């Protein structure tokens, strides 16, 4: 299938599309934690690295089949998300942010000293099983499940926690449990994205999952509009494309990237799509109907 696509699409573009897909899975996971539930996580790359290393080592050194090692990587990340979430999600706002940064840094240092992971040199020779089709099929599944979750009971409860924790408790929501749950789901997607990344890149090292990567993912969620799936898709696409587009300005690339973040936030402080959800669009249509009836 990919070789078929490669006849029509330039490999360079195909590669960008794959990267957008992987970033989408990562960002949608972070969106559940930060965008929807409102728990600021600045260490998402840490979960990504757990998924990447777990799956890469399983398929390289233990001969696990591709999908099984992907799943194992995602589950391992989810397990860590769960274990870290329990004691830390009592912390509020920026304290939690700091703990997530710290956790990701510790994970990075761990992999820098991790013999089976090749220490600072990293792992190379990971089988390149991740293809365009696999990535985008998974992206579609993730988006559909995500959308369903967010418009029903548990998803609404996640939003409620973000909006007002005390009121959420008064509605019978066990906020601590649900925060840990959101964190676990988000970490699972982080691990999944990491596994896909490792099996696409052929080569991973601890620096790939440093603080900047976490920040990049957070930018994708906030830029599009917190908690909105279309927003996350838009933000991820723009910020994955931006460095590529900015290649023309060569070494000034990051300068523009930094300035872009500031400018976008000044002009669209609540993200590009604000908090647009499906019913906003429905509402718009509804209003039109009413108006045409009147006129």
């Amino acid at each position: 299938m990919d070789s078929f696509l490669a006849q029509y699409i330039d490999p360079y573009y195909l590669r960008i599309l794959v990267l957008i897909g992987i970033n989408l899975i990562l960002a949608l996971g972070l969106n559940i934690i930060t965008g929807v539930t409102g728990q600021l996580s600045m260490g998402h790359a840490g979960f990504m690295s757990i998924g990447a290393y777990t799956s890469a080592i399983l398929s390289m050194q233990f001969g696990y089949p591709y999908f099984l090692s992907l799943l194992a990587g995602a589950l391992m990340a989810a397990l860590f998300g769960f274990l870290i979430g329990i004691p830390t999600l009592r912390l509020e706002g920026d304290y939690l942010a700091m703990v997530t940064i710290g956790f990701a840094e510790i994970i990075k240092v761990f992999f820098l000293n991790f013999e089976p992971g090749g220490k600072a040199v990293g792992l190379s020779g990971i089988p390149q099983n991740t293809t365009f089709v696999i990535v985008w099929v998974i992206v579609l599944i993730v988006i559909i499940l995500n959308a369903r979750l967010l418009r029903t009971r548990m998803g609404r409860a996640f939003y409620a926690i973000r909006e007002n924790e005390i009121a959420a408790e008064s509605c019978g929501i066990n906020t601590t449990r649900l925060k840990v749950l959101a964190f676990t789901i988000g970490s699972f997607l982080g691990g999944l994205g990491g596994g896909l990344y490792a099996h696409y890149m052929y080569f991973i090292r601890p620096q790939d999952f440093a603080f900047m990567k976490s920040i990049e993912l957070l930018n994708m969620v906030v830029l599009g509009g917190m908690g909105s799936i279309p927003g996350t898709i838009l933000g991820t696409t723009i910020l994955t494309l931006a460095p590529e587009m900015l290649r023309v300005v060569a070494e000034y690339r990051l300068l523009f990237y930094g300035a872009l973040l500031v400018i976008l936030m000044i002009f669209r402080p609540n993200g590009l799509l604000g908090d647009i959800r499906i019913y906003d669009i429905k509402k718009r249509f509804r209003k039109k109907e009413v108006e045409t009836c009147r006129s």
Partner: protein
Amino acid sequence: MPILELKDVTQEFGGLRALNAVNLTVEEKQIFGIIGPNGAGKTTLFNIITGIYVPTQGELLFKNEIINKTPPYTVARMGIARTFQNIRLFNKLSVLDNVKVGSHGVTRAGVFGNMLGLPASRREEKELTEKAQLLLHLVGLYEKRWEYADSLAYGEQRRLEIARALALNPTLLLLDEPAAGMNSSEKVDLMELIHKIRDDKNLTILLVEHDMNLVMNICEQIAVLEYGKKIAEGPPEIVKNNKKVIRSYLGVEA
């Protein structure tokens, strides 16, 4: 039969004693009012009942069960719903979703059911929507169900909080200054609403309010708090003529 009992409940914050050995018995199906000047400890009382604070001393019984240390979400699931003095809605959710969240404690669908759209979860969601719509009709906000909660007017937000609380199918409803910020015609509507929900939903209502007229009109039993102490209790006509109450409110020797 009493639905809620407070026995010698005391609450201290640091050195400050917000509630001092308060005894209170609320009978089933009663509309019970708590009045008192600012800082008398009325909202503190609500926060103790709903599990946000753990009382320093004393005992708290709901349907003969001790709920001193029960966390807020469990208290809610046991059937105590509340509104807040400083409105606490889910601002960036629609009016309809606010009410649906209110049902969280009495619904069951889990993450997997929701994600996979399992039949039980779908059925529950459908029932939830219908119930929420009915409640919005009841408080007169059905037309605004797609609006963001924070785009509603003040009085509407208070009514939305009531609808959200009712979504929990409570047996005891706590209303914290439901009439605050309302004009007189809105207050009349509110009184009607409170009577109606008590009769329709068969529940007990405990309310804190500053508006004397409203309290005297709808409450069957009233307790008066001052500086964390209960200074009087009884039906409206008795409380109205209590010397201590008059002194507390008018500040003169009667």
